[in-house]
C-alpha cells in the first residue's frame, strides 16, 4: 500500500515543506511508503507521476490553498487536511487512512 500526498500553504516557504517532511518521516516509521509533492513558492516540486497516482491506495492533500492540477486525483480516495494537522499529528493522519483501508 502506498500513499501519495500534496502539501501547500499560502506563503509556500515553511509549512509546505515541514508538512512534507513529517508525512515522509512518519510514513517510514509506520512502514507506509508516502510520496509527497510540494506546491510551494517555487511552484510544483517532486511532481507525482500518473503511475504513482494510479498505484496509490489513497491521496492526502495537506493544503491551505486550492491544489493545482487537482483533476489528477479524480476517482481516488482523497483525504483533505490542513498543513498544520500534517505537521502536528502526522501519525494519526496516516493511521486513520491505514485503518480505513483495512490493511
Amino acid at each position: 500500500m502506498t500513499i501519495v500526498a500534496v502539501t501547500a500553504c499560502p506563503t509556500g516557504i515553511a509549512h509546505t515543506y515541514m508538512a512534507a517532511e513529517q508525512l515522509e518521516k512518519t510514513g517510514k516509521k509506520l512502514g507506509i511508503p508516502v510520496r509527497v509533492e510540494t506546491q510551494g513558492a517555487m511552484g510544483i516540486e517532486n511532481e507525482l507521476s500518473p503511475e504513482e497516482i494510479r498505484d496509490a491506495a489513497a491521496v492526502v492533500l495537506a493544503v491551505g490553498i486550492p491544489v493545482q492540477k487537482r483533476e489528477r486525483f479524480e476517482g481516488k480516495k482523497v483525504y483533505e487536511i490542513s498543513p498544520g494537522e500534517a505537521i502536528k499529528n502526522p501519525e494519526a493522519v496516516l493511521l486513520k487512512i491505514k485503518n480505513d483501508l483495512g490493511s
Partner: protein
Amino acid sequence: MKANRLKQFLLSGVSYAIPFVASGGILIAISIAFAPMTAKGPDFSNAPFLKLINDIGSAAFAFLIPVLSGYIAFGIADRPGLVPGFVGGYIAGQVGAGFLGGIVSGLLAGFLVFWIKKLKPPRYLRPIMPILVIPVLSSLVVGFVMFKIIGAPIRDLMAAIQHWLTIMNTGNQVILGIILGSMIAFDMGGPVNKVAFFFGAAMIQKGNFAVMGACAAAICIPPLGLGLATLLNRRLWTEQEKEAGLAALAMGAIGITEGAIPFAAADPLRVIPVIMVGSSVGSVIAMLGKVGDHAPHGGPIVLPVVDHRLIYCLAIVAGMITVALLMTFIKKRLNRSRSQ
C-alpha cells in the same frame, strides 16, 4: 459553502500576491531609505537612480490588487477565472476600493465564472467558451459591478478605516496593537498572521506606515523571544531545543516568524499564548511610539526604513524579554510540578 473553502480561495490570492508585495515594497523602501528626507517626503530630484528604483518598485506594487483578485478567482474557477479577476482587481484599484475591493472582485469573478462553466452550451459554441465567451462576458459583468455598484461603497469604507487609523486615540491604538500582535503571533506565518500582515502592507500603499510598523515589531518577537529564552536558562531546555533556539534567533533577525514553529509545535498550549502576549507588547509600544515601517516586512532587518528607530528597537526588545521571562517562568513551574 464551507468557511474552510472560502478561506482557501482568499489565501490562494494572498499566496500569489506576496512576492509582488515583497518585490515592490522592498525596492520602494530601499529608494526611500537612501534619498534625502524632506518635509514633503523623500526628495528624488538629485538622485535619478533612486528614482528609477522607486519607479520599478511602484510598478511591482501596482500589481498587488489585480494579482490578489485574479488569483482568488483562479482558486475558485481555475484558469478562466484569471481574466475577470485581474480586470476587477485593476478596477478596484482605480476606483480607490483598495485591497478590500480586490477581495470582493476576486470572489465575484471566481463564482461568476464557476457558474458559467457549469452551463452546457451547444456543441458549436464550446471551443469559443474559454477564449471568447467567458472572458468577455465575465469581465463585462465584474467590471460593471465594480465601477457602478460596489466600487464606491467599498472605497468609502476603506477611507473610513484609514481615517479611523489616523485619528485613533490612545485606547484604540492599544487595542489595535493587541489585535495585530496577537494575530501575527497566533499561527506564526499561517493564514491569521497573513491577514494582519496584508492589512499592514495594504496600508503602506495608502500612505499609512503605522500598521505595518506595529506588525514589523510583532513579526520577529516570537522567534527572537523564544531564542532568548533558550539562552537565558540553558538547563531548562533539551539539546534539540537549544539548537532550534539559535536557528530561531537567526530567523527572527530577518523577520521570519516561522522560526518559532518548532517550539510551538512541541507545546502549543503554552507557547502560543506566551508569544501572543510578547508580540502584543511589541505592537502596542510601536503603535504608541508612532513607529512607521515603509517596507512590507518585519524584524530588525527593516530598521533602515523604519521611522522612530529607537522606539522600534525598544518595542522588539520589550517583546523579546516578555516572551523569554514568561517562558522561563512557565518551564520552571512545569519542572517543579513534574518532580513533585
